[in-house]
């Protein structure tokens, strides 16, 4: 378990990383980047799987099931949409030049 100040340090460093990593994004990439980061927080699927995996009662299983279902949608949908968008971006970039 990650606790106390260690967790706080992780939060702080991750926040600065997120901020720095995209600080020079051009306007044309705003929407694809939003979609890409949407895909990345699909990692919630991992947590939803664990939550469902240690469910005991029917209610826990139901909520966990919904969680995994939603998270899987986030991952798969996020990837497909981002990939399609960036695909078009590359094709049109080539065509223009």
């Amino acid at each position, binding site marked *: 378990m990650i606790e106390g100040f260690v967790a706080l340090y992780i939060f702080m460093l991750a926040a600065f990383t997120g901020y720095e990593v995209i600080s020079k994004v051009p306007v044309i990439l705003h929407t694809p980047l939003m979609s890409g980061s949407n895909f990345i927080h699909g990692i919630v699927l991992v947590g939803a799987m664990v939550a469902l995996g240690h469910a005991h009662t029917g209610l826990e299983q139901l909520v966990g099931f919904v969680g995994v279902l939603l998270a899987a949608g986030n991952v798969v949908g996020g990837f497909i*949409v981002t990939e399609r968008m960036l695909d078009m971006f590359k094709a049109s970039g080539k065509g223009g030049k």
Partner: protein
Amino acid sequence: MNFVIQAAYFVAAILFIVGLKQMSSPVGARRGILWAGAGMLVAVLVTFFSPDIHGVGNYLLMFLAIGIGGGLAWWSGKRVAMTDMPQMIALYNGMGGGAAAAIAAVELIRYEPMSADVQAIAVVGALIGTMAFSGSLIAFAKLQGLLKGTVRYPQQQMVNLAVFGITVLFGAIIALSGTDYAGILLFLFFALALAFGVLMTLPIGGADMPVVISLYNALTGLAVGFEGFVLGNPAMMIAGIVVGAAGSLLTQLMAKAMNRSIRNVLFSNFGGGSAG
């Protein structure tokens, strides 16, 4: 096995950050999503072998849920027109927020003692995830044309503030009462958080929606990071908070590109006088 899982999460976190970095430049954008996708695949695959997951029934439910959720998303993502992309991002983002809220809900209805800080973070993540869920769904409905026009009525901001205040109050009671909170209170907390997401998004016009979706994207990231803390999962913590921070910056950049301030977007009908 535990070492392999932790190592895989570590690699996934690196791939996410590198992928995000690449996605912010035109040259590497396509490579970026593939890197992030590889990280996701590694993280999800090793999680099937997590020692925290037990019960054949749970495994069956898991495969079923992944099949249904992933299948529907695959189908909808492939056939949607390019012009309809923003609302699909909103939809998938809302699903992520809902998943974060579901994790919090499972942990809270287990009624197992948690340390006070973990319980508080679980509740905060639940609040953020739930409102990102319902708010994103409203954003989706608006852009999809299922919900037309903006809904405005007198004292709207006051009503929203009141709903938010009561939600936070309920959340605080749940967070501070150990395992003594009533089930009905938990239910009301989630219901109110859902309602707040709806109420907050209803008055916002369609033109401002991309900025709002980006904001909810950042909020979902934050909720995922918080629930990662609750589950003790570093990959979720890092990916969630990185997206939370990147999404916040991106929201500001998008608002600036549209010559709007975020305050203007969210509270544009405040007093009715401010020109957009």
